[in-house]
């Protein structure tokens, strides 16, 4: 489309404004984590690193981080297995209800988190708890895995669509057993899609707060829950600021990894 120079400038200005809108709040948190003033008077008068030391020594935040990592790894592992299986079934077979299956995979993220949360909560209370298994870290993993499946599913499905079956057929024609074909052909083919999907699943789980609120057992505190619980306590504000700043800095990591692993388009979809 031939755009007039003024239209180009207008678009460029909107883009710049948009990026400004996106990044200013994040930069503010970074700056505030060094703000020497306890009440975060603005503009800051002096800068200090003492909140960073305080955050490093904060046991609650550390425990919460560790809980989040465990929940994320568990949910990612389950999502990898289930998501890959559904992707293979949907892409390689024609069967009745195939569209319904793909809709079902999307549903946990298409419905508001609070619905998924209280649904799992009430089901756990009325079905699983009577069996003697109360809510704990495990129920968090179950809840997270439910909405993480879709990220792996989408990544693997897209890869399978693009790569076709001819390599696998060639492998079978050359006498490889199904196991060998999977090990030497199929798995290497989808490996980077698994990594990208797994990364997304982990990030989704790591960031989740609503489903977590309803599925966590007593005493289970993930990092988002810890932040939320401390958000309204003025005493904790400096430490919350540092944890927030760390999370912002860390968010660069998965994008960088996904780009390295699966090319520039990886991670372009968070679903």
């Amino acid at each position, binding site marked *: 489309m031939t755009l007039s120079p003024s239209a180009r400038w207008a678009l460029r200005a909107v883009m710049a404004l948009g990026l400004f809108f996106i990044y200013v709040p994040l930069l503010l948190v970074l700056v505030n984590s060094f703000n020497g003033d306890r009440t975060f008077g603005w503009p800051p008068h002096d800068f200090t690193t003492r909140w960073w030391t305080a955050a490093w020594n904060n046991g609650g935040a550390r425990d919460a981080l560790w809980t989040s990592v465990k929940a994320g790894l568990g949910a990612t592992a389950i999502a990898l297995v289930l998501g890959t299986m559904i992707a293979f079934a949907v892409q390689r*077979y024609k069967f009745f209800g195939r569209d319904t299956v793909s*809709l079902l995979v999307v549903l946990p993220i298409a419905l*508001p988190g609070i619905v998924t949360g209280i649904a799992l909560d009430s089901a756990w209370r009325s079905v699983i708890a009577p069996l003697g298994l109360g809510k704990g870290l495990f129920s968090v993993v179950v809840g997270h895995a439910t909405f993480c499946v879709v990220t792996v599913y989408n990544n693997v499905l897209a890869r399978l669509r693009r790569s076709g079956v001819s390599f696998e057929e060639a492998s079978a024609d050359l006498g490889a*057993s199904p196991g060998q074909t999977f090990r030497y052909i199929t798995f290497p083919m989808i490996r980077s899609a698994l990594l990208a999907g797994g990364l997304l699943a982990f990030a989704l789980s790591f960031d989740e707060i609503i489903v977590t609120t309803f599925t966590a057992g007593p005493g289970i505190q993930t990092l988002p829950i810890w932040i939320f619980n401390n958000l309204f306590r003025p005493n904790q504000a400096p430490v919350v600021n540092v944890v927030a700043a760390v999370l912002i800095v860390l*968010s660069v990591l998965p*994008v960088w990894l996904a780009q390295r692993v699966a090319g520039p388009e990886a991670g*372009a979809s968070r679903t």
Partner: protein
Amino acid sequence: MSFLHRHPRLRLAALLSAPMLWLVVAYLGALAVLLVSAFWAVNGFTGEVVREFTLQNFRTIVTEEVYRNVTLRSLGVAVAVTVICVLLALPMAFYMAKVASPRARGWLVIAILTPLWASYLVKAYAWRVLLANDGPLDSLIGTPGYGLVAVVIVLSYLWLPYMILPIYAGLERLPDSMLEASADLGARAGRTFRGVVLPILVPSIFAGSIFTFSLSLGDYITVQIVGGKTQLIGNLVYANVGAANNLPFAAAIACIPVLIMVIYLTAVRRSGALEEL
């Protein structure tokens, strides 16, 4: 292995059984329990759930004005957020896909993606700091303070990348030659945009709107952080599960966003929006 190899149907069953067990039994089962419990009640004295069929919860929701107001307010917020996101995302995605140089494009995609990974809570918190009275924004241009306006701003901020990315993907698939053809046929930029670009982008916009809509409709965290006294559907559900300890009533309220989303999903499904997710 070779037995499975000769029986593709069995292979399919083996592939699907575990995931379906999870999604149908665990997830849909849980949703079904929720739906059923919406027809139960809570004993006012003991706080115990009474498992007898009653329509009382739904009657309360339909007849009492506060629930209608909250529903309409939540819908209004979801619509406003979606519209703001579309209006911002269209020019940004267009610039990224069609105006920026290929090199700059890669960086812009990263610039849009990265904040998506930054914690939701951290971003809402950043806005709480930004919008505070005597905060940074107040000293520059003034702040709306914590309330409904703040909720709309922050939710738009949070979900904007979810709208930019599908629109960008849609634009990337749109060949430049089509835009040139339109220009050759005499259409000016505005006409090309309305006649060619926008119709092609409809599924992408709907795909993005599923996120902005659903995420706004169920949110109660952002509302607690920057909303002041504002209440949306999510807050009512949360209050009834927690403080009021009335799970059946919470379940009944939760049916409102589910119903809205189901209607919305069916409506946009025909445009092919679900494939764009």
